[in-house]
Protein backbone atom coordinates (compact mmCIF):
# COMPACT_ATOMS: atom_id res chain seq x y z
CA UNK A 1 0.00 0.00 0.00
CA UNK A 2 1.46 3.36 -0.94
CA UNK A 3 1.88 6.06 1.67
CA UNK A 4 -0.31 9.13 1.90
CA UNK A 5 1.33 12.56 1.79
CA UNK A 6 1.25 12.48 5.58
CA UNK A 7 2.79 9.00 5.48
CA UNK A 8 5.75 10.32 3.49
CA UNK A 9 6.20 13.13 6.00
CA UNK A 10 5.97 10.62 8.87
CA UNK A 11 8.66 8.45 7.32
CA UNK A 12 10.99 11.45 6.84
CA UNK A 13 10.40 12.68 10.38
CA UNK A 14 11.61 9.40 11.84
CA UNK A 15 14.97 9.71 10.09
CA UNK A 16 15.77 13.19 11.44
CA UNK A 17 18.04 12.71 14.45
CA UNK A 18 17.69 14.53 17.75
CA UNK A 19 19.45 17.87 17.56
CA UNK A 20 18.88 18.45 13.84
CA UNK A 21 18.55 21.89 12.26
CA UNK A 22 16.19 21.55 9.33
CA UNK A 23 14.74 23.67 6.55
CA UNK A 24 11.46 22.37 5.11
CA UNK A 25 10.10 23.16 1.67
CA UNK A 26 6.47 23.68 0.73
CA UNK A 27 4.03 20.80 0.26
CA UNK A 28 4.81 17.40 1.77
CA UNK A 29 8.00 18.63 3.54
CA UNK A 30 5.98 21.19 5.47
CA UNK A 31 4.03 18.31 7.07
CA UNK A 32 7.15 16.75 8.63
CA UNK A 33 6.97 18.71 11.90
CA UNK A 34 3.67 17.00 12.80
CA UNK A 35 5.41 13.65 13.08
CA UNK A 36 8.66 14.31 14.98
CA UNK A 37 8.93 11.45 17.49
CA UNK A 38 8.49 12.53 21.13
CA UNK A 39 11.73 13.34 22.91
CA UNK A 40 13.60 14.58 19.86
CA UNK A 41 14.42 18.27 19.66
CA UNK A 42 14.58 19.46 16.07
CA UNK A 43 14.82 23.13 15.24
CA UNK A 44 13.10 24.37 12.10
CA UNK A 45 14.82 27.09 10.11
CA UNK A 46 12.85 29.40 7.87
CA UNK A 47 14.83 31.36 5.29
CA UNK A 48 13.11 34.65 6.11
CA UNK A 49 14.97 34.68 9.40
CA UNK A 50 13.76 32.16 11.98
CA UNK A 51 15.55 29.38 13.82
CA UNK A 52 12.95 27.57 15.89
CA UNK A 53 9.74 28.11 13.93
CA UNK A 54 6.77 26.52 15.66
CA UNK A 55 3.30 25.46 14.51
CA UNK A 56 0.92 27.82 12.76
CA UNK A 57 -0.70 30.38 15.03
CA UNK A 58 -4.26 29.57 16.11
CA UNK A 59 -6.89 31.63 14.27
CA UNK A 60 -7.17 35.08 15.84
CA UNK A 61 -3.74 34.84 17.46
CA UNK A 62 -1.62 35.54 14.39
CA UNK A 63 1.24 37.97 14.89
CA UNK A 64 1.30 40.23 11.82
CA UNK A 65 5.11 40.46 12.06
CA UNK A 66 5.72 36.72 12.20
CA UNK A 67 5.49 34.55 9.12
CA UNK A 68 7.58 31.70 7.77
CA UNK A 69 8.99 31.53 4.25
CA UNK A 70 5.74 30.05 2.95
CA UNK A 71 3.89 33.12 4.20
CA UNK A 72 2.10 31.22 6.98
CA UNK A 73 1.55 33.02 10.27
CA UNK A 74 3.55 30.81 12.60
CA UNK A 75 4.71 30.76 16.21
CA UNK A 76 8.15 30.56 17.80
CA UNK A 77 9.28 27.75 20.09
CA UNK A 78 11.14 28.63 23.33
CA UNK A 79 14.78 29.09 22.37
CA UNK A 80 13.92 30.46 18.93
CA UNK A 81 15.80 33.39 17.41
CA UNK A 82 15.06 35.83 14.58
CA UNK A 83 17.60 37.46 12.25
CA UNK A 84 18.02 39.15 8.90
CA UNK A 85 18.26 37.54 5.47
CA UNK A 86 22.05 37.92 5.26
CA UNK A 87 22.55 35.80 8.37
CA UNK A 88 19.76 33.43 7.34
CA UNK A 89 21.47 32.66 4.04
CA UNK A 90 24.86 32.48 5.73
CA UNK A 91 23.27 29.67 7.75
CA UNK A 92 21.99 28.04 4.55
CA UNK A 93 24.98 28.47 2.24
CA UNK A 94 27.56 28.04 5.00
CA UNK A 95 26.63 24.40 5.64
CA UNK A 96 25.07 24.99 9.05
CA UNK A 97 21.73 23.24 8.38
CA UNK A 98 22.03 19.53 9.04
CA UNK A 99 19.14 18.75 6.69
CA UNK A 100 16.83 20.24 4.10
CA UNK A 101 13.68 18.40 3.09
CA UNK A 102 12.46 19.66 -0.26
CA UNK A 103 9.79 18.96 -2.80
CA UNK A 104 10.73 18.08 -6.37
CA UNK A 105 9.50 18.28 -9.91
CA UNK A 106 12.23 15.84 -10.93
CA UNK A 107 15.25 14.17 -9.34
CA UNK A 108 17.92 12.50 -11.45
CA UNK A 109 19.63 9.25 -10.56
CA UNK A 110 22.81 11.22 -9.84
CA UNK A 111 21.04 13.53 -7.42
CA UNK A 112 20.34 16.50 -9.69
CA UNK A 113 17.32 18.39 -8.41
CA UNK A 114 14.71 20.31 -10.42
CA UNK A 115 12.15 21.99 -8.22
CA UNK A 116 11.87 25.66 -9.12
CA UNK A 117 10.23 26.07 -12.49
CA UNK A 118 8.74 24.32 -15.46
CA UNK A 119 9.87 25.43 -18.92
CA UNK A 120 7.77 27.81 -20.93
CA UNK A 121 6.61 31.41 -21.00
CA UNK A 122 6.11 31.94 -17.29
CA UNK A 123 7.45 34.36 -14.74
CA UNK A 124 10.57 32.81 -13.23
CA UNK A 125 10.85 32.80 -9.45
CA UNK A 126 13.52 30.90 -7.58
CA UNK A 127 13.40 32.11 -3.98
CA UNK A 128 15.79 30.29 -1.66
CA UNK A 129 15.64 26.92 -3.43
CA UNK A 130 19.08 27.04 -5.05
CA UNK A 131 20.85 28.22 -1.91
CA UNK A 132 19.23 25.51 0.19
CA UNK A 133 20.02 22.79 -2.35
CA UNK A 134 23.73 23.67 -2.42
CA UNK A 135 24.06 24.59 1.24
CA UNK A 136 22.38 22.06 3.53
CA UNK A 137 24.61 19.20 4.65
CA UNK A 138 22.01 16.64 3.59
CA UNK A 139 19.32 17.35 1.03
CA UNK A 140 16.39 14.97 1.14
CA UNK A 141 13.49 15.03 -1.27
CA UNK A 142 9.94 14.20 -0.13
CA UNK A 143 7.54 13.79 -3.02
CA UNK A 144 5.01 11.57 -4.69
CA UNK A 145 6.79 8.98 -6.81
CA UNK A 146 5.02 10.15 -9.98
CA UNK A 147 3.16 13.25 -11.11
CA UNK A 148 -0.63 13.53 -11.01
CA UNK A 149 -0.55 12.23 -14.58
CA UNK A 150 1.53 9.21 -13.60
CA UNK A 151 4.81 10.42 -15.08
CA UNK A 152 7.94 9.38 -13.18
CA UNK A 153 9.62 12.14 -11.17
CA UNK A 154 12.79 10.11 -10.69
CA UNK A 155 14.58 10.20 -14.03
CA UNK A 156 17.93 9.54 -15.67
CA UNK A 157 18.33 13.21 -16.65
CA UNK A 158 16.14 16.09 -15.54
CA UNK A 159 14.31 17.76 -18.42
CA UNK A 160 13.19 20.63 -16.22
CA UNK A 161 15.62 23.46 -15.32
CA UNK A 162 17.94 22.41 -12.50
CA UNK A 163 17.89 23.86 -9.02
CA UNK A 164 21.33 22.36 -8.33
CA UNK A 165 23.28 19.44 -9.74
CA UNK A 166 24.24 16.41 -7.62
CA UNK A 167 22.79 17.60 -4.35
CA UNK A 168 20.11 15.06 -3.33
CA UNK A 169 21.12 12.28 -0.92
CA UNK A 170 17.76 10.61 -0.28
CA UNK A 171 14.31 10.50 -1.85
CA UNK A 172 11.22 9.65 0.19
CA UNK A 173 8.11 8.82 -1.86
CA UNK A 174 4.75 7.16 -1.42
CA UNK A 175 6.31 3.91 -2.71
CA UNK A 176 9.87 3.84 -1.45
CA UNK A 177 12.92 5.31 0.23
CA UNK A 178 15.86 5.67 -2.15
CA UNK A 179 19.38 6.88 -1.58
CA UNK A 180 21.87 8.29 -4.02
CA UNK A 181 25.35 6.94 -3.37
CA UNK A 182 28.30 7.60 -5.65
CA UNK A 183 25.86 8.83 -8.32
CA UNK A 184 23.89 5.55 -8.17
CA UNK A 185 20.23 5.32 -7.26
CA UNK A 186 19.68 2.67 -4.59
CA UNK A 187 16.32 1.30 -3.43
CA UNK A 188 16.54 1.08 0.37
CA UNK A 189 12.94 0.54 1.49
CA UNK A 190 9.59 -0.22 -0.04
CA UNK A 191 6.14 0.63 1.26
CA UNK A 192 4.07 -2.27 2.63
CA UNK A 193 2.92 -4.58 -0.18
CA UNK A 194 4.96 -2.67 -2.76
CA UNK A 195 7.59 -4.67 -4.67
CA UNK A 196 10.90 -3.51 -6.15
CA UNK A 197 9.36 -4.16 -9.56
CA UNK A 198 6.47 -1.83 -8.74
CA UNK A 199 8.96 0.89 -7.87
CA UNK A 200 11.11 0.23 -10.95
CA UNK A 201 8.04 0.42 -13.19
CA UNK A 202 7.33 3.93 -11.92
CA UNK A 203 10.94 5.10 -12.05
CA UNK A 204 12.59 6.36 -15.25
CA UNK A 205 16.12 5.63 -14.11
CA UNK A 206 18.27 2.60 -13.42
CA UNK A 207 17.57 1.31 -9.93
CA UNK A 208 19.95 -0.73 -7.80
CA UNK A 209 18.20 -2.76 -5.12
CA UNK A 210 20.03 -2.62 -1.81
CA UNK A 211 21.10 -6.01 -0.43
CA UNK A 212 19.59 -4.77 2.85
CA UNK A 213 16.25 -3.84 1.26
CA UNK A 214 13.61 -3.38 3.97
CA UNK A 215 9.85 -3.00 4.09
CA UNK A 216 8.85 0.22 5.82
CA UNK A 217 7.48 -0.11 9.31
CA UNK A 218 4.69 2.39 9.35
CA UNK A 219 1.31 2.33 11.05
CA UNK A 220 -1.82 2.65 8.90
CA UNK A 221 -2.81 5.72 10.86
CA UNK A 222 -1.74 7.80 13.81
CA UNK A 223 -3.94 10.14 15.86
CA UNK A 224 -6.64 9.74 13.23
CA UNK A 225 -4.32 10.75 10.36
CA UNK A 226 -4.05 8.08 7.65
CA UNK A 227 -0.44 7.25 6.74
CA UNK A 228 -1.18 4.45 4.27
CA UNK A 229 -3.50 4.93 1.31
CA UNK A 230 -6.53 2.68 1.41
Amino acid sequence: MPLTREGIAYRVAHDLPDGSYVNLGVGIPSLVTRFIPPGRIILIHSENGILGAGPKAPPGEEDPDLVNANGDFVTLVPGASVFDHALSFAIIRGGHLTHAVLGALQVSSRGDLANWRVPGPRVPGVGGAMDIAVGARQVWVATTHTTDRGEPKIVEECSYPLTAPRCVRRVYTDLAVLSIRDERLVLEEVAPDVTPDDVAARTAATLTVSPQLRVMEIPAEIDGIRLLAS
Partner: protein
Amino acid sequence: MDKVVATCDEAVADIPNGASIMIGGFGPPGIPVHLVHALRRRKLRDLVLIYCGGGTDEDGIGGLIADGAVRKLISSYPTHPGATAVRERYLAGELELEVLPQGTFVERIRAAGAGLGGFYTPTGVGTELAEGKEVRVIDGRAYLFELPLRADYAFIKAYRADRWGNLVYRRTMRNFNPIMATAADVVIAEVDEVGPVGALSPEEIETPCIFVDRVVEAPRPWVRQRPATGR
Protein backbone atom coordinates in the same frame (compact mmCIF):
# COMPACT_ATOMS: atom_id res chain seq x y z
CA MET B 1 20.98 64.53 13.33
CA ASP B 2 17.21 64.81 13.65
CA LYS B 3 15.91 62.92 10.64
CA VAL B 4 12.19 62.88 11.31
CA VAL B 5 10.02 63.85 8.35
CA ALA B 6 6.34 64.61 8.88
CA THR B 7 4.71 62.50 6.19
CA CYS B 8 5.46 59.68 3.79
CA ASP B 9 4.62 62.01 0.90
CA GLU B 10 7.28 64.44 2.06
CA ALA B 11 9.77 61.58 2.55
CA VAL B 12 9.52 60.50 -1.10
CA ALA B 13 9.02 63.93 -2.66
CA ASP B 14 12.46 64.22 -4.27
CA ILE B 15 12.57 60.85 -6.02
CA PRO B 16 13.02 61.39 -9.77
CA ASN B 17 11.83 59.36 -12.73
CA GLY B 18 14.22 56.52 -13.44
CA ALA B 19 15.38 56.14 -9.83
CA SER B 20 16.40 52.74 -8.47
CA ILE B 21 14.61 51.90 -5.23
CA MET B 22 15.12 49.01 -2.83
CA ILE B 23 12.07 47.95 -0.84
CA GLY B 24 12.40 45.80 2.26
CA GLY B 25 9.98 43.18 3.46
CA PHE B 26 9.09 39.55 3.04
CA GLY B 27 5.69 38.25 3.73
CA PRO B 28 3.81 41.04 4.70
CA PRO B 29 6.26 41.63 7.63
CA GLY B 30 8.65 44.48 7.06
CA ILE B 31 7.13 45.98 3.93
CA PRO B 32 7.04 49.81 4.15
CA VAL B 33 3.57 49.98 2.66
CA HIS B 34 2.90 53.63 3.49
CA LEU B 35 6.05 54.74 1.67
CA VAL B 36 5.13 52.57 -1.30
CA HIS B 37 1.65 54.10 -1.48
CA ALA B 38 3.17 57.59 -1.25
CA LEU B 39 5.57 56.69 -4.05
CA ARG B 40 2.64 55.49 -6.13
CA ARG B 41 0.98 58.89 -5.70
CA ARG B 42 4.07 60.48 -7.31
CA LYS B 43 3.13 58.85 -10.65
CA LEU B 44 6.76 58.36 -11.67
CA ARG B 45 8.09 56.42 -14.67
CA ASP B 46 11.00 54.12 -15.48
CA LEU B 47 11.68 53.08 -11.90
CA VAL B 48 13.95 50.14 -11.13
CA LEU B 49 12.66 48.25 -8.08
CA ILE B 50 14.81 45.91 -6.03
CA TYR B 51 12.37 43.83 -4.03
CA CYS B 52 12.39 40.16 -3.10
CA GLY B 53 8.80 39.43 -4.11
CA GLY B 54 6.48 40.50 -6.90
CA GLY B 55 4.16 42.83 -5.03
CA THR B 56 0.43 42.66 -4.37
CA ASP B 57 -2.47 45.06 -4.38
CA GLU B 58 -2.33 45.37 -0.60
CA ASP B 59 1.33 46.32 -0.33
CA GLY B 60 1.11 48.78 -3.23
CA ILE B 61 4.07 47.30 -5.08
CA GLY B 62 1.71 45.41 -7.35
CA GLY B 63 -0.07 48.71 -7.96
CA LEU B 64 3.17 50.49 -8.89
CA ILE B 65 3.85 47.80 -11.45
CA ALA B 66 0.28 47.83 -12.74
CA ASP B 67 0.53 51.63 -13.11
CA GLY B 68 3.44 51.17 -15.51
CA ALA B 69 5.76 53.08 -13.17
CA VAL B 70 8.35 50.29 -13.14
CA ARG B 71 10.74 49.60 -16.00
CA LYS B 72 12.65 46.78 -14.29
CA LEU B 73 12.23 44.55 -11.25
CA ILE B 74 15.22 42.85 -9.63
CA SER B 75 13.70 40.11 -7.53
CA SER B 76 14.01 36.59 -6.21
CA TYR B 77 10.48 35.25 -5.89
CA PRO B 78 8.01 37.33 -7.92
CA THR B 79 5.68 34.35 -8.37
CA HIS B 80 3.86 34.25 -5.04
CA PRO B 81 0.06 34.38 -4.77
CA GLY B 82 -1.24 37.85 -5.57
CA ALA B 83 1.68 38.85 -7.81
CA THR B 84 -0.63 39.33 -10.76
CA ALA B 85 0.68 42.67 -12.03
CA VAL B 86 4.21 41.27 -12.47
CA ARG B 87 2.88 38.33 -14.41
CA GLU B 88 0.75 40.42 -16.73
CA ARG B 89 3.40 43.07 -17.40
CA TYR B 90 6.21 40.56 -17.81
CA LEU B 91 4.31 38.27 -20.17
CA ALA B 92 3.24 41.34 -22.16
CA GLY B 93 6.91 42.29 -22.55
CA GLU B 94 6.41 45.54 -20.64
CA LEU B 95 8.52 44.72 -17.58
CA GLU B 96 12.15 43.70 -17.46
CA LEU B 97 12.82 41.07 -14.80
CA GLU B 98 16.11 39.95 -13.23
CA VAL B 99 15.64 36.94 -10.98
CA LEU B 100 18.29 35.98 -8.44
CA PRO B 101 18.59 33.20 -5.88
CA GLN B 102 17.47 34.74 -2.60
CA GLY B 103 20.86 34.33 -0.93
CA THR B 104 22.59 35.93 -3.89
CA PHE B 105 20.03 38.75 -3.92
CA VAL B 106 20.72 39.71 -0.29
CA GLU B 107 24.47 39.07 -0.47
CA ARG B 108 24.84 41.36 -3.50
CA ILE B 109 23.08 44.10 -1.52
CA ARG B 110 25.28 43.45 1.50
CA ALA B 111 28.41 43.60 -0.69
CA ALA B 112 27.38 47.04 -1.94
CA GLY B 113 26.77 48.29 1.59
CA ALA B 114 30.06 46.84 2.82
CA GLY B 115 32.17 48.36 0.04
CA LEU B 116 33.14 45.03 -1.55
CA GLY B 117 33.72 44.67 -5.28
CA GLY B 118 31.98 41.32 -5.59
CA PHE B 119 32.04 37.77 -4.28
CA TYR B 120 31.87 34.12 -5.28
CA THR B 121 28.85 32.00 -4.37
CA PRO B 122 28.27 28.29 -4.96
CA THR B 123 24.57 28.96 -5.50
CA GLY B 124 23.31 28.67 -9.06
CA VAL B 125 26.30 26.82 -10.52
CA GLY B 126 25.10 24.43 -13.22
CA THR B 127 21.70 26.11 -13.57
CA GLU B 128 20.19 28.46 -16.12
CA LEU B 129 20.68 31.37 -13.69
CA ALA B 130 24.44 30.91 -14.20
CA GLU B 131 24.20 31.89 -17.86
CA GLY B 132 26.59 34.70 -18.70
CA LYS B 133 28.22 34.60 -15.26
CA GLU B 134 31.88 33.92 -14.59
CA VAL B 135 32.57 30.51 -13.02
CA ARG B 136 35.67 30.06 -10.90
CA VAL B 137 36.91 26.93 -9.18
CA ILE B 138 38.24 27.70 -5.71
CA ASP B 139 39.69 24.94 -3.57
CA GLY B 140 38.07 22.35 -5.84
CA ARG B 141 34.54 23.77 -5.83
CA ALA B 142 32.83 25.83 -8.54
CA TYR B 143 31.46 29.29 -7.71
CA LEU B 144 29.70 32.09 -9.59
CA PHE B 145 30.98 35.65 -9.51
CA GLU B 146 28.40 38.17 -8.37
CA LEU B 147 28.59 41.97 -8.35
CA PRO B 148 27.39 44.34 -5.65
CA LEU B 149 23.87 45.73 -6.00
CA ARG B 150 23.04 49.21 -4.76
CA ALA B 151 20.27 51.73 -5.31
CA ASP B 152 19.50 55.42 -5.25
CA TYR B 153 16.89 54.96 -2.52
CA ALA B 154 15.94 52.31 0.02
CA PHE B 155 12.53 52.03 1.68
CA ILE B 156 12.86 50.37 5.08
CA LYS B 157 10.23 49.28 7.59
CA ALA B 158 11.11 49.12 11.30
CA TYR B 159 9.19 48.84 14.53
CA ARG B 160 10.78 51.50 16.73
CA ALA B 161 13.18 54.32 15.99
CA ASP B 162 14.71 57.30 17.67
CA ARG B 163 14.89 60.72 16.05
CA TRP B 164 18.43 60.05 14.77
CA GLY B 165 17.24 57.00 12.86
CA ASN B 166 18.46 54.15 15.04
CA LEU B 167 16.13 51.25 14.23
CA VAL B 168 14.72 48.21 16.02
CA TYR B 169 12.69 45.44 14.39
CA ARG B 170 10.47 42.77 15.86
CA ARG B 171 9.99 39.14 14.87
CA THR B 172 10.48 38.53 11.14
CA MET B 173 10.35 42.21 10.17
CA ARG B 174 14.10 42.29 9.73
CA ASN B 175 14.44 40.20 6.58
CA PHE B 176 16.04 42.51 3.98
CA ASN B 177 15.56 45.78 5.87
CA PRO B 178 18.84 46.05 7.85
CA ILE B 179 20.82 45.02 4.75
CA MET B 180 19.10 47.34 2.29
CA ALA B 181 19.61 50.18 4.80
CA THR B 182 23.36 49.92 4.08
CA ALA B 183 23.21 49.99 0.30
CA ALA B 184 21.39 53.08 -0.96
CA ASP B 185 22.26 56.74 -1.32
CA VAL B 186 19.12 57.82 0.52
CA VAL B 187 17.57 55.52 3.12
CA ILE B 188 14.01 56.24 4.24
CA ALA B 189 12.63 54.36 7.24
CA GLU B 190 8.90 53.99 7.91
CA VAL B 191 8.40 53.06 11.56
CA ASP B 192 5.56 52.38 13.96
CA GLU B 193 6.96 54.51 16.78
CA VAL B 194 9.55 57.28 17.02
CA GLY B 195 11.00 57.83 20.49
CA PRO B 196 13.55 60.24 21.92
CA VAL B 197 17.28 59.72 21.43
CA GLY B 198 18.46 57.35 24.13
CA ALA B 199 15.22 55.38 24.27
CA LEU B 200 16.80 52.37 22.56
CA SER B 201 19.54 50.35 24.23
CA PRO B 202 22.89 50.20 22.41
CA GLU B 203 22.61 46.41 22.11
CA GLU B 204 19.07 46.25 20.72
CA ILE B 205 19.70 48.70 17.86
CA GLU B 206 19.87 46.58 14.73
CA THR B 207 20.32 49.40 12.22
CA PRO B 208 22.64 52.15 13.53
CA CYS B 209 21.56 55.67 12.58
CA ILE B 210 24.56 56.16 10.29
CA PHE B 211 22.67 54.25 7.61
CA VAL B 212 19.39 56.18 7.83
CA ASP B 213 18.59 59.53 6.20
CA ARG B 214 14.87 60.02 6.85
CA VAL B 215 12.46 58.64 9.44
CA VAL B 216 8.70 58.84 9.14
CA GLU B 217 6.20 57.63 11.72
CA ALA B 218 3.39 55.65 10.11
CA PRO B 219 2.03 53.33 12.77
CA ARG B 220 0.03 50.30 11.86
CA PRO B 221 -3.28 50.18 13.76
CA TRP B 222 -2.50 47.01 15.69
CA VAL B 223 0.69 48.48 17.16
CA ARG B 224 -1.38 51.04 19.05
CA GLN B 225 -3.17 48.22 20.85
CA ARG B 226 0.00 46.67 22.28
CA PRO B 227 1.68 47.62 25.53
CA ALA B 228 4.34 50.20 24.68
CA THR B 229 7.14 48.32 26.38
CA GLY B 230 6.51 44.86 24.97
CA ARG B 231 7.79 43.45 21.79
